[in-house]
């Protein structure tokens, strides 16, 4: 016996004293102090030992600023960013559960001999696969002297690039083989360790790795997506549009049908007391998710072909449309803008290309064709491909003279060509000669175009108006009928004679004022043509720009978060939970004739309810606090990825030093987390107990 109750208490407190002191000093104390700070206007730069000013008590002013005051725009924007990023939590939880179920199953043989035998076979296959990859992906020896033309790789030869790719592919095949071999040999334990690995790696390293994967061009993810999207595009273009409309409508209709059926079934079960309100609520949420997914998929399918159902935007304004828009603007908003500024805007709308620019732009259509013709000519006259080294001066002169004669090259570019090959000290490389000849051909064509345009050009060297440029382009197309691709001419016309819808909008609003924004929008929507291009029109189906695009950056972070979360602590908790389920329950279910799915729904899932409950709470807390590292390392807060914790950091330290305001953010976050946790406990525990 140690002594009386009080003495025992004293001894216990003495033992706990170091821990308690640490807690009070380093945790409770700062927490209470931050609560105090949140009611003051403390700023590190204004309130310190060098300043006479003291922090002022402002009461709830900081909270008011954040929730509905001048900081509310930022606060709520970042709050919704935080919430959006939590979309990945259910996916991560279900993914962890699925992984745990897989890792709990008996996928590998129990007997070591069988395992080693299978492992040996897998190892043999791996070696064969690696050897096969090495041989099949061998680089082209002829490419040793040719420099790569791929963006970012122009410093390497084609041979070196192919070698790098071969090595990478072989390594990848080998890695997959090793994983399968080791898994078969060692058993489930290997796979459990392998899936858990990402959790052990440093967060920053993982973020940087994913940043590389997410590169819009050349990143692994888009490298895989690109051919898939290309195949979809090909398929859509090869099939009639009505097929995709029908598919889209059918998908959406099926989604509606299933949702209604599930809801009706759920209502029936609720009325009969088969399920409680919480379970019914879950069913409703899942049904809504199913409905949204299938309707969304239906819309995407219907939008795939060109001339899809829903317009996607506005086409640029033609000169006629610009005139109509300006006339409407004058009529409806006359007197609400400065006349001089309106004149400037009208001038912007009307101003077209300079004579030389129009000639250059039209002539440049022929660049590729010019190069191809020159390469053919050079090959014929020199009997060499364009890449092969240096010509003798005589060869070069002969080739040039033949070229000038054959293509009737204009005098100025012809003189330059002759000058190029006349220098005895300078024998041009074949590539340089081909390039110079291409330029000469384009310039010759330019002179022919200029001859057609000259009578149509404005006097005194003034630039064309957009309307005038349109007429000039028509004249050129007519004069050179058959020499221009219609699409190329249309591209030039669109580029040089139209006003972009958005530019027209912003210019008119800038002179009319924001109060007249709605009127400007109405004028332009009435005037402009709607663009009914589908997803595969124009640039086609492009892979997303991930971290660069504010539309996709958060989705990219969610995908990364799900990948990181699947094999982590949640998987371990579920594995532990699964091992605690009594086998008798499964035996009983098997005796009753339950299928695998029924066993999962009626045995596994209910038995895992406490584990799920815990995981949901912890994930919610983590989700509300998270996103900081990703924003800092991967996007630096760009592309609309700032979350509440990052906002707090910016306010407190990143040049603002507003400790009072930052503390208020922290306490609001605490209140939100507390409320959500309380909600989870109240309704989640009810579900757990049902």
């Amino acid at each position, binding site marked *: 016996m140690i002594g009386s109750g009080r003495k025992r208490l004293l001894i216990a407190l003495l033992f706990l004293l170091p821990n308690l002191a640490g807690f009070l000093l380093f945790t409770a104390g700062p927490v209470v102090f931050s609560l105090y700070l949140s009611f003051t206007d403390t700023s*590190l*730069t*204004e309130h*310190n*030992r*060098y*300043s006479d000013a003291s922090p002022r008590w402002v009461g709830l002013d900081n909270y008011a*600023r954040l929730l509905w*005051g*001048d900081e509310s725009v*930022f606060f709520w924007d970042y709050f919704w960013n935080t919430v959006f990023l939590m979309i990945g939590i259910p996916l991560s939880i279900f993914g962890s559960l699925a992984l745990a179920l897989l890792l709990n199953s008996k996928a590998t043989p129990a007997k070591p001999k069988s395992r080693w035998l299978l492992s040996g076979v897998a190892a043999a296959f791996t070696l064969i696969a690696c050897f096969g990859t090495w041989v099949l992906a061998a680089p082209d020896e002829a490419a040793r002297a040719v420099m790569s033309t*791929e*963006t*970012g790789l*122009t*410093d390497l030869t084609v041979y070196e690039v192919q070698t790098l790719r071969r090595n990478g592919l072989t390594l990848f095949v080998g890695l997959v083989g090793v994983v399968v071999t080791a898994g078969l040999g060692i058993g489930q334990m290997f796979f459990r360790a392998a899936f858990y690995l990402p959790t052990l790696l440093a967060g920053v390293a993982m973020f*940087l790795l994913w940043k*590389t994967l997410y*590169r*819009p*061009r*050349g*990143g692994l993810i888009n490298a895989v997506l690109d051919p898939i999207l290309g195949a979809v595009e090909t398929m859509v273009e090869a099939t009639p549009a009505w097929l995709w409309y029908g598919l889209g409508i059918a998908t959406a209709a099926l989604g509606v049908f299933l949702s209604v059926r599930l809801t009706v079934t759920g209502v029936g079960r609720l009325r009969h007391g088969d399920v409680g309100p919480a379970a019914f609520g879950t069913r409703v949420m899942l049904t809504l998710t199913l409905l949204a997914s299938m309707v969304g998929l239906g819309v995407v399918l219907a939008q795939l072909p060109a001339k899809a159902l829903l317009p996607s935007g506005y086409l640029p304004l033609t000169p006629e449309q610009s005139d109509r828009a300006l006339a409407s603007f004058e009529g409806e908003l006359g007197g609400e803008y400065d006349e001089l500024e309106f004149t*400037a805007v009208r001038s912007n709308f009307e101003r077209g290309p*300079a*004579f*030389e*620019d129009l000639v*250059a*732009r039209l*002539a440049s259509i022929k*660049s590729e064709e010019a190069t191809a013709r020159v390469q053919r000519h050079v090959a014929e006259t020199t009997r060499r491909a364009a890449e092969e080294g240096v010509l003798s001066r005589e060869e070069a002169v002969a080739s040039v003279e033949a070229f000038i004669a054959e293509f009737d090259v204009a005098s*100025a570019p012809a003189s330059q060509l002759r000058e190029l090959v006349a220098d005895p000290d300078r024998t041009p490389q074949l*590539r*340089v000669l081909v*390039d110079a000849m291409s330029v000469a051909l*384009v*310039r*010759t064509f*330019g002179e022919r175009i*200029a001859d057609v345009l000259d009578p149509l050009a404005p006097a005194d060297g003034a630039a064309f108006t957009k309307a005038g440029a349109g007429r000039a382009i028509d004249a050129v197309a007519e004069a050179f009928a058959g020499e221009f691709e219609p699409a190329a001419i249309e591209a030039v016309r669109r580029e040089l004679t139209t006003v972009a819808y958005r*530019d027209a*909008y*912003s*210019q008119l*609003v*800038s002179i009319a004022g924001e109060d007249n924004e709605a009127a400007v929008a109405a004028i332009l929507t009435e005037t402009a043509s709607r663009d009914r291009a589908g997803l595969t029109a124009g640039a086609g189906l492009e892979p997303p*720009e991930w971290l*660069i*695009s*504010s539309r996709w950056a958060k989705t990219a972070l969610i995908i990364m978060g799900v990948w990181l979360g699947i094999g982590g602590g949640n998987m371990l908790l579920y594995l532990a939970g699964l091992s605690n389920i009594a086998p008798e329950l499964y035996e009983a279910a098997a005796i009753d004739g339950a299928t695998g799915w029924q066993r999962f729904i009626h045995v596994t899932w209910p038995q895992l309810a406490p584990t799920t409950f815990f995981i949901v709470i912890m994930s919610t807390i983590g989700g509300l606090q998270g996103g900081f590292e990703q924003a800092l390392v991967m996007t630096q*807060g*760009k*592309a609309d990825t700032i979350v509440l914790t990052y906002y707090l950091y*910016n306010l407190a*330290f*990143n*040049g*603002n*030093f507003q400790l009072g305001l930052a503390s208020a953010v922290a306490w609001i976050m605490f209140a939100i987390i507390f409320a959500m946790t309380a909600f989870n406990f109240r309704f989640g525990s009810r579900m757990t107990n049902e």
Partner: protein
Amino acid sequence: MRWLIAGLVLVWGVFTAFAYLVVLPEEQAGEELMRAYTSVAEAIEADATVAGPGVEAKVAAFVAAWRERAGGALPDDLETLWSMEADTRRPLLVAFREAFQEIYGFGIEDAPTLVWSTDDNPARQVQCQLFREWHLLNYGTPADIVTDPSNRDITKAIVQCVAGKGPDLIESYGPEQLRQFVESGVALDVTEAAQEDGFGLDMAFEAAKPSMATRGPDGEWRQYAFPCNVGYTVLFYHQDLFEAAEVAKPRGPWSVEEATATARRLIDHAEREGTRRFGIMNLGAWDMGVHAGGRFFNESATASLYNTPETVRGLTAYHDMIYRDDVAPTPAEAASVAAAGGATMNAGAEAASASSLFAAKVAAMYVGGRWEYVSLAERNRDRVILPAIARRLAEDSLDDETRQLLIEARETIRQDVLLPISDEAHAAMNAALTDEDRAGLVRLGVAHVPTAIGAPTYNAGARVALVNRSSEHVDLALRFLRFLGSEAYNEQINQTYDSICGVPAFTLDDDGISGPPRALPGLEEMDSPVFVEAMDEWARSEQISPFITRTRLGELVGPVLEDLQNDALGPAEAARLIERRINEQISANLRRNEMLRGRWEAIVGKAFDPDPSLYLPDQLEETEHSRSAFRERMLRVIDDKQRQAAEAAVGKADGVSGSDSFGSPAAASGVTR
């Protein structure tokens, strides 16, 4: 188990004791000071006039005491100390420490030491050594200095200083950071000291002043710092790409239209050769709006008047370069070609990865800083120069003298591309390069950055050192600021290509930017006077406002410019949004902060109306801060700059035979009217 744990603890204890007692790290302390003394003694011996008053005698007395302590082992030529083996030198170091104790009455560990929070650039150690020597040469007493790279961050610096524990010298970047240091009370006002000791504001570039000093309510400048260097970016281009495409090499001043046409020709030429290349990289929307004559604030910084035709022109030029003319990469393209973890978006393509992309000729032109010399020089060294030297050295016919020079060049540049090479060795290295070698070099050209108005504008800031008012060595810290104004320090900045120095008097000599070493082959233009012209004639400091923090400005402007970069917003709309958001924030700050409001009213000369529906610039109507008055003054400034640019551009075009200057579209079509 308990015996195992006890054994491990014992082993750990023994090793720790050994490290502390036997290795005697403090015996190594003082070597830098010893080096300073030997350099200074030799310098005085060569020319006694370099020393300050009474310094010669002090140094001589110290050396005499040292010799006595060394018992005759100290060589007459002190510089030869440094070619001795470390073991041979150690007793002399011990003697040095003893002499130090005798002469000064305190040990080397107690020598006055400044802590300088700066980056971990290797050049800082050289600069620290220069300071030790400079201090000894000018004052005859020892001073030591150590760098502290781990506490450079402004937040850490302010937190440590207000807690009473900060470095003696703190680095600040630009006017906004200086403002934060001044407002927090950390920075020491050095105005009077600077006037007395000769490191005043007038010594530095005009554009660097707002980074060194703040203007008080009375309009007087109060100085708090002195520049370590000045930072801004110019245009780099590949000379060989221009020559191959027969496009006139730029120098500037030149306009965005000219640059676009030039870039177009370079891209077309590359495409004919089957290569995809960008014309120009690393231009930013933020800068281009300002370069065109836009300003975030009016002159009094009482409101934002960003939405002007000039700003829209600049933003339009930026947008067109990417989306209409296709000569600059989109943010996605820029991010795609960047190395992992390196570059961010288009204008943020940063440092090492961006310059390596430029070196790989992903872009023909690139906006970068002089500090990128090191990465480019290392590339030339590793890929071209060292193999060329090795090939030449392998020739039997090579004479001994040339062989020695090549070996000297090779060993020097292998060690560090910034180390000086003798003229003869440099010439030998150059002669070893064949035409094929030169074709493999990065051959850099330097030009002014093109702008929408044709007159360059550089948003220049300075990296400055300021004194922590709680420093225990304030006088020594002030001497450090004086050292920053010395020729030795500033030449070292120029020599190490750490941008250029902050003192215009030390920037140029007859050969270009002052001081050896000579640039490695291909990078001679890194010594171009364009760098000094940029700072001297065209630079201005970044504009800040006391009514909105720079950080908040970035938070408001950044997303809008991001949308512009991603073609989700037009230039006019972007300008309008930016102006509105900044003004809303300033208005909110004024409504909330009484002191700030009083300051605003004192400047504007009328009361601030807190009505949230009233637009801030509207409150400035009929005052000298109004939009119309501001615009009138800005247009005059733009006219003057354009006139100046036109005069500067005459005769500066460097044409390639057979082509027009700057490669205009007319030249591309071969047609003129």
